[in-house]
């Protein structure tokens, strides 16, 4: 049972077919001969398809190697351009719950490019309030290079008031970037209507290939390249365009956006059943993030496929392993360092304790998910949580000293963490 669609989701059959057709052909879209022209046509049609699906102009579509590259390009590129135009502009305002593809850019810019990062706090549901953005800008409006706030959070699923936030930034003529990797194809994302200046999307979260993404970049938004070379994409991004990947990406974006509302409604129903079922079986489990029962800019306030739950007294890693052994594939949702999962910066920013942050799992439903997936999880969750709870934080951490000096096996099962 694959319940990790926020990490990556299977490709749509139509996208696979579109790629397969292109794999069999030759042609560099930059070449002038017939084969090149044919590839160029595929790329440009794909560009138009994507632009139409997300409410952008074709010239605003810049093909990249995925979400990470798009985030890097937007954050670094816009920062560099804005700073070079006015050396006072060294401040980047971003939310505390961004993906590492944004956060680590900020850290790098801080270390190497003299950037100053202002972190926007989130509330207990993980939401950024426009008033906070305004306050952050007001500290010194003239020194802000850009604002970056993700459309929807990949861990807890909370959707941000992007249109409103972008409007605040624009009052001060500050460009606004949003990482919409989790949102496109799931929420109503319209680039122009949202008012944002730059938007990141990636193929493998919506039924397209890994390693193909887009940065939507407004026509008048200056952005210094990160990759230099042939200047294929508006001189902002270089590298031979990957025609098969772009063809697959376009089919996937169009497909995902096309059946978005029916699929999202279906997934929200499944998700609500999952959350209800888990809480019935594990009464102290708590849902993190927005409950998803409100509307925001025409979509739900939580990603429909996302169920992020804390299981008090359990360790996320232990839950994950026990579920994996029972055929349920999910994630703690947070980043790993050296294979060791770190307490989620998102939950910590939402005010959760380290223990709660560590004791959490993300179940992410996607287009192939069914009732049977949820039912299987509900079959196994109670004994798994029970087992993980008895294991508690056994052994790994300082707070739960459980070194047993020559005790018996019976004592051992009580070691560490709350016993029940």
């Amino acid at each position, binding site marked *: 049972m694959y319940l990790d669609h926020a990490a990556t989701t299977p490709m749509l059959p139509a996208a696979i077919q579109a790629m397969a057709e292109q794999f069999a052909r030759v042609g560099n879209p930059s070449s002038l001969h017939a084969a090149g022209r044919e590839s160029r046509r595929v790329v440009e049609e794909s560009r138009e398809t994507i632009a139409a699906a997300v409410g952008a102009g074709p010239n605003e579509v810049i093909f990249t190697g995925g979400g990470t590259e798009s985030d890097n390009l937007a954050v670094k590129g816009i920062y560099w351009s804005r700073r070079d135009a006015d050396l006072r502009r060294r401040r980047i305002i971003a939310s505390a719950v961004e993906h590492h593809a944004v956060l680590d850019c900020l850290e790098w810019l801080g270390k190497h490019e003299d950037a100053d990062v202002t972190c926007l706090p989130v509330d207990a549901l993980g939401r950024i309030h426009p008033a906070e953005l305004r306050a952050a800008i007001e500290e010194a409006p003239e020194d802000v290079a850009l604002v970056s706030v993700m459309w929807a959070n990949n861990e807890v699923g909370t959707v941000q008031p992007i249109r409103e936030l972008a409007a605040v930034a624009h009052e001060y003529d500050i460009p606004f970037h949003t990482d919409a990797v989790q949102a496109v194809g799931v929420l109503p994302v319209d680039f122009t209507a949202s008012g944002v200046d730059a938007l990141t999307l990636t193929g493998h979260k919506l039924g397209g290939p890994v390693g193909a993404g887009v940065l939507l970049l407004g026509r008048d938004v200056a952005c210094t390249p990160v990759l230099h070379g042939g200047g294929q994409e508006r001189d902002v991004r270089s590298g031979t365009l990957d025609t098969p990947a772009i063809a697959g990406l376009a089919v996937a974006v169009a497909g995902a956006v096309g059946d978005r509302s029916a699929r999202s409604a279906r997934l929200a129903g499944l998700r609500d059943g999952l959350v209800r079922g888990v809480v019935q079986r594990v009464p102290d489990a708590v849902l993190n993030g927005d409950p998803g029962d409100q509307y925001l800019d025409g979509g739900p306030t939580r990603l429909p496929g996302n169920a992020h739950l804390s299981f008090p007294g359990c360790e996320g*890693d232990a839950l994950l*392993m026990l579920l994996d052994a029972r055929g349920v594939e999910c994630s703690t949702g947070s980043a790993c360092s050296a*294979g*060791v999962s770190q307490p989620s910066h998102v939950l910590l920013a939402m005010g959760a304790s380290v223990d709660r942050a560590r004791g959490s799992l993300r179940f992410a439903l996607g287009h192939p998910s069914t009732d049977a997936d949820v039912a299987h999880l509900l079959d196994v969750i109670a004994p798994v949580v029970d087992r993980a709870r008895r294991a508690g934080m*056994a052994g790994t*951490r300082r707070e739960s000293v459980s070194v047993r000096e*020559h005790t018996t*096996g019976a004592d*051992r099962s009580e*070691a560490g963490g709350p016993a029940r």
Partner: protein
Amino acid sequence: MRLLAAMSGGVDSAVAAARAVDAGHEVTGVHLALSPAPASLRQGARGCCTLEDARDARRAADVLGIPFYVWDFHERFADDVVDDFVSEYAAGRTPNPCLRCNEKIKFAAVLDRAVALGFDAVVTGHHARLSDGVLRRSVDSGKDQSYVLAVLTPEQLALAVFPLGESTKADVRREASTRGLAVADKPDSHDVCFIADGDTRGFLARRLGERPGDLVDAESGAVVGRHGGAFGFTVGQRRGLRIGHPAVDGKPRYVLSISPATSIVTVGPAPMLDVTAVHAGPPVWTNGAPVLPFEGTAQLRAHGAVSGARAHLVRGRLVVELQEAQRGIAPGQAVVLYAGDRVVGSATIESTG
């Protein structure tokens, strides 16, 4: 059985896990993250805690087709092994961190967690034989690791599986290669895994600061040199004493004892290193207490020589008389008692005579 295989990324633990799989057990691989900030690449033969080692372990698990996870034990390792290592040196003793890691981490913290999560036992690639609760030396005497396992209690051993004890290291490497495990030719790790550059003295100096003191000759009582910190010395050490002028008798000098309180390091000629009795702490019996006094053999260092020995208890502490004098025996090390190749028990040396 449901077995947890501790996989360091080395050849031994990979083959141990493979054998457990072959034996029909349900095996899950786990790599222990013991360093808070692991280096990405291994340097030489040191350590087992780099990202490269974690990758090697993961790759071996993939080849075996078993689930694999990384368990983060770096805080416990820092407290129970690294801090212990530093404070033992600071107290003038010579610790064995591998032994401490087995005692406190692999067969305690990891075992606790494994059992709590529903595993029946932990598999490691240690070279030692274990069956029916009896711990014995490996058939490969050069690679035998029973010394560093002699701190384990019967309860701990009951939950341990050592599949490599009947094989030589050469066999294990050959088998890894036949199985297509890329770690077949990976060099053995040695030295202290958490001191990446191998400079123990530098590591201790960073942790403890310089604590200068005198080098005193045991025979003449004369101060024969100065040093930056008593923790930089081990009993039996000859090199690096930097004694200004040769001793009166012209014989080389060795560290005889270390007194952290006064920062005095006492040196003397080789014969003064001879130890014929050790006084140790309370023993751990690996398979129940033997008949006392115990007659058998004793080993006082990892890969050290073995001597005929007679052991008895004095107020709960182990006293061992050695038939052949041993050199370079330091407080902090373990004295391990054997009956033939069978491990009887161990205790930490407190003083020598």
